[in-house]
């Protein structure tokens, strides 16, 4: 698996988005989990909560620090990955699969178009590091 799957979109806060129709699954990128180190806790919103593009929707704690999770999109949370409560390390092990965080019903699916492609994100990350 490439570090940055082509079928996903990314934002500058290192979240990824897998959009399908009017919903989108959101997680954090390989780069983000690698920077954080061992993830020990993820605090996520509840189903039915609203998230707003550019605003925080939760936080993620590693052995090194605590960081905010920023929503790349605006919408309503329709699913939450409850499994991360017991196994937060999944975010490190499988950031694009089992380590997903929330699924959102988008208020405006065109917001996805403003996000970075895998190539753009990879270029962005190489500048960051």
């Amino acid at each position, binding site marked *: 698996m490439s570090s940055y799957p082509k079928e996903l979109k990314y934002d500058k806060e290192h979240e990824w988005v897998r959009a399908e129709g009017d919903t989108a699954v959101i997680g954090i990128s390989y780069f983000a989990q690698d920077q954080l180190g061992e993830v020990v*806790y993820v*605090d996520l919103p509840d189903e039915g909560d609203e998230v707003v593009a550019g605003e925080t929707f939760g*936080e993620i*704690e*590693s052995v*090194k*620090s*605590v960081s905010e999770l920023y929503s790349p999109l605006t919408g309503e949370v329709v699913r939450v990955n409850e499994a991360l409560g017991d196994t937060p390390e999944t975010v490190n092990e499988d950031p694009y699969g089992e380590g997903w965080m929330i699924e959102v019903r988008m208020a405006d699916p065109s917001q996805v178009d403003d996000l970075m492609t895998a190539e753009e994100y990879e270029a962005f990350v190489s500048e960051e590091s």
Partner: protein
Amino acid sequence: MRFIPVNGAQRERMLRAVGVSDAGELFDGLPAEVRLDRPLRLPPGLAEEELIAHLRELAARDLDASRVVSFLGAGCYDHYVPAIVRHVVSKPEFFTAYTPYQAEASQGTLQAVYEFQTMVAELAGMDVANASMYDGATAFAEAAYLAARATGRAKVAVSGAVHPEWVDTLRSYAGSGLLEVEIVRFDPRTGLSGADALRAAATGAAALMVASPNFFGCIEDLPAASAVAHDAGALLIAAFAPALSGVLEAPGELGADVAVAEGQPLGGPMSFGGPGLGLFACRERFLRRMPGRVVGRTVDAEGRPAFTLALQTREQHVRREKATSNICSDHSLNALAAAVHLAALGAEGLEQLGRACVGKAAYLRERLVATGRFERRFASPHGHEVALRYLGDADEMLEEMLDRGYLAGLHLRRFFPDEDGTVLLCATERRTRGEIDALAEEVASL
């Protein structure tokens, strides 16, 4: 490991390295008008012997509990502290004020705090406890912050029967704009914050905040308060009295989500009201929102048990703007004293302590009511404190009793204008039958 400050030669080297000739130059960046340009206005120094004599003379002007018979409680309690407490906390290894950030150098301190946390969690009937806070009032207000963050609500509904100074502390915290304090009236007949009054205030609240025993010594109905809080999506924050933990059910067993207490009764001197000791415990799901610091138990590289500060990512020194609280300190020495006191008592001793306190307070109430000078103020069960109405001028009575060597309680009018004549008295295990009988006889003779 040794903690030795720099010597003169090292200081000189450091000053040279940064390019200044003396430490004063480091302050050149400050405007002249805020810099002190004269010595501090202090009297000349004293020889050690003179100083001791001077302090003795000052101390002799105080009237402490060793020189009067104290029936004062109201937040600070006259309990017997076993001699072993002073012995242990006086050990230099503990007495040195050093924050145990370096686990490899602080195993003893860390383990002591860990044991303390375990005991507090047990007393509170909770999953986790922190390493202590400044005092009960601070713990109480910090609990309100926790509830506000956990629920996303700002309003906290506080029983009007909580210690007024704790409520003041809470109001100070509310000055941050993060909390909104609503006082729930207590029932003047029972001295309790009834479920109906709490229910009305619980809507949209982050927490209901009660104390049991409350400021009047009355035992609140925590299970009812818990049901009311949880129905409204609020947390129940309950303050408890650790000296009565051996005879009263723990707040965690009765449905509280956060339990706090003033820990001074455990190993702490009254010391004119401070320093106190804040006990703070909660359910595990709030662990990451808990203020202060927490010591955890782990294993070292060789698999041996080891203790270390845990969850420091929540602490102010790591990320100031996101910290759960602006407190990243504790009252370690008081906490150690509490742990030693509890260890010395044991479960059986703690139960005996509670029984003695409650039994003596009941005897005190009966004796005073029997004089015909007092009436019971609230029709509710009480712990080691009881509010009685004095049938006469309460201030005059207290003044006269002080002349006769008794601190006969607190006139509640000081905090509650409607409570003219109501006196709050406390009997700890230290008060003897003889002292209580003598107090009743003195009052009767007024």
